[in-house]
């Protein structure tokens, strides 16, 4: 049988630099959704602190750091990104492996906010949207998860099937911002 070669969602599309902004694919490691069982929120958060060094994130927030992050994804749902979830977490939450389900990119540069301002109906300027803040919103016509991971850096997640559209739409916005100088 032929050997199948695993490809990342944005294989052949990224990295891309336009003006001061760079778009690159993020290798986030494993991605698991965590949905705490009823009344188990605190127990899950404690188990996460013990096993992975981060709490279950509050609404619109992310915890942890690069390589091991927990991103709020909706009511009673967060994505654990990086490590495989510790077995102890399964006592308190429904866990689903979604590693191959998401296209994950990093948008970085001085004008990153200006690029997203063209696509996202949210105020993502640093005064309102600081490092560790996250939002479920729209990126052009796609539902997305947007997290500020650095002073001028955002992590953006969309469904894997949308990877090409994501890169296309971001590229157009990056070119538009760069053209204005």
């Amino acid at each position, binding site marked *: 049988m032929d050997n199948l070669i695993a490809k990342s969602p944005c294989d052949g599309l990224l990295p891309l630099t336009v003006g001061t902004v760079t778009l690159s694919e993020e290798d986030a490691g494993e991605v698991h959704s965590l949905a705490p069982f009823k009344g188990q929120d605190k127990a899950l958060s404690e188990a996460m602190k013990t096993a992975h060094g981060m709490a279950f994130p509050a609404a*619109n927030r992310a915890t942890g750091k690069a390589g091991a992050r927990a991103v709020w994804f*909706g*009511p009673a749902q967060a994505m654990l990104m990086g490590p495989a979830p510790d077995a102890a977490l399964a006592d308190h939450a429904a866990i689903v492996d979604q590693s191959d389900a998401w296209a994950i990119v990093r948008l970085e540069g001085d004008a990153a906010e200006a690029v997203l301002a063209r696509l996202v*109906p949210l105020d993502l300027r640093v005064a309102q949207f600081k490092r560790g803040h996250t939002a*479920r*919103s*729209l990126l052009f016509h796609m*539902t997305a998860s947007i997290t500020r991971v650095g002073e001028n850096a955002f992590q953006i997640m969309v469904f894997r099937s949308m990877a090409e559209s994501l890169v296309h739409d971001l590229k157009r916005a990056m070119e538009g911002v760069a053209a204005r100088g």
Partner: protein
Amino acid sequence: MRITCPHCGERDRREFYYRGAAVDLDRPAPDAGAEAWDNFVYLRENPAGVTRELWYHEGGCGAWIVVTRNTVTHEIQGSQLASEVNA
């Protein structure tokens, strides 16, 4: 139009999907009779004024929200998680 999601805060209307009047939350009992079911399935108020509606935050966190809205002034008077309305 801006709608406040109890989870996400004030968001643009384009993030939301409109379901209709919030009657879905008052589903009659299975044996409530033909008239109650006819009302539930087919009959809707068309108020000029305050109305309660179900909206879905599909371009966001995925929550169902009961929005109280004035159809005359377009004022949004409040929003609440549907899961907490009938809790």
